[in-house]
């Protein structure tokens, strides 16, 4: 796995995405232990706090659980996520179809998606701070 610090996405989000993808595609099974913060940080050459934040986000999303003293484990019930993801695919497909019908190309679509997500993210962050 190669994390790219200079792409627009923060490192911890890249890590979260990668781990989520690995879990959903079955590379990491439910109940397995994820590498420790230290090992993950040393392997990827990133700050341990980034790993901590990624693990925290995964815990908030209900994908992993932190067992004190033992480490970070993938929840057994995570396979349920795969179903949700399957449902999401047709939604995305139809949205992209509709945007393409407006004569927008790939880059336009991606830019619009990212700015929309960014706006939501900022709003969420403001809500958390308030």
């Amino acid at each position: 796995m190669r994390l790219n610090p200079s792409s627009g996405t923060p490192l911890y989000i890249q890590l979260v995405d990668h781990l989520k993808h690995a879990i959903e595609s079955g590379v990491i099974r439910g109940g397995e232990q994820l590498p420790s913060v230290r090992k993950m940080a040393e392997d990827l050459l990133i700050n341990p706090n980034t790993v901590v934040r990624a693990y925290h986000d995964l815990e908030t999303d209900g994908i992993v659980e932190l067992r004190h003293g033992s480490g970070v484990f993938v929840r057994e019930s995570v396979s349920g996520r795969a179903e949700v993801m399957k449902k999401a695919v047709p939604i995305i497909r139809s949205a992209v179809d509709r945007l393409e019908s407006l004569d927008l190309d790939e880059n336009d679509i991606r830019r619009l998606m990212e700015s929309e997500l960014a706006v939501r993210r900022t709003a969420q962050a403001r809500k958390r701070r308030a």
Partner: protein
Amino acid sequence: MREPVAVVTQLSRQFGANLALNDVTLAVPRGCVFGLVGENGAGKSTLIKHLLGLWRAESGSVRVFGRDPVTDPAGVLGRIGYLSEQPDLPGWMRVDELLRYTQAFYPRWDPAYASQLIEQFGLSRDARVRTLSKGQRARLGLIAAEAHRPELLILDEPSSGLDPIVRRDILEAIIRTVTDEGRTVLFSSHLLDEVERVSDHLALLHRGVLRLCAPLEEVKARHRRLVLHFAVTRTNPPDVPGAIQVYGAGREWTVVCDMARTHAPSMAHHLGASLVDDSPASLEEIFVGYSDATAAAPGSHMRVVT
């Protein structure tokens, strides 16, 4: 909040006609990776040498572990590991002689850890330092700085001129240091992607002035790149408050700005342009933006007190 490892208060330093440091105030929190960036001649090495006591504070004060490194070198330096850009190790010494020599000064030296690092880096114990390549010398200097597990590891442009494998070793050492409870790393670098990967805090020096000093996340969150499309062709760049860099031509102008001082949609509306893109600025753009500014006014930098 635990006490910061190093506190620099209103430090100024002049070399002849050149003002190397201009009223710099910063604090290095304990347990973090503190990245110091700046162009060549911005004052990074000067600041680091003040922390080590190699330069005396002409005006202002420097405290490391609560003590002045100039009046108490033995107390402060015993807890610091230092790797300079070109480690001036004596050429006639052999690798294990150098490590034995360094070991005598630091009671917390871990011989097993040092041996493990020597194996890992592939250094030959009997080789003389002058026969080692630049990368091997950097690795040797890293072992000498790291093996006593210092509370504060200072690296002054450690990766300059080194191949990617040695740079990897240095980054690994930085991460290993900071995962140990309470140990801190301060390093200065030109390689911004390295700084982005491993830093918690970022400080940016430009011509001796501290333009930026904040946690890295905040820096990246608060600086965005906005692309504006104007209806009318402009010959002059648009005046955007809080902008650190503006470039473009004709109808399309790109502005990198500090979002704490700008609200994007209202600003675009005010200028009579449409906001086409709003994405996070890369560290390189932030660096160039703060380093390119012709006015080095101390008040215009962003400071966050932790």
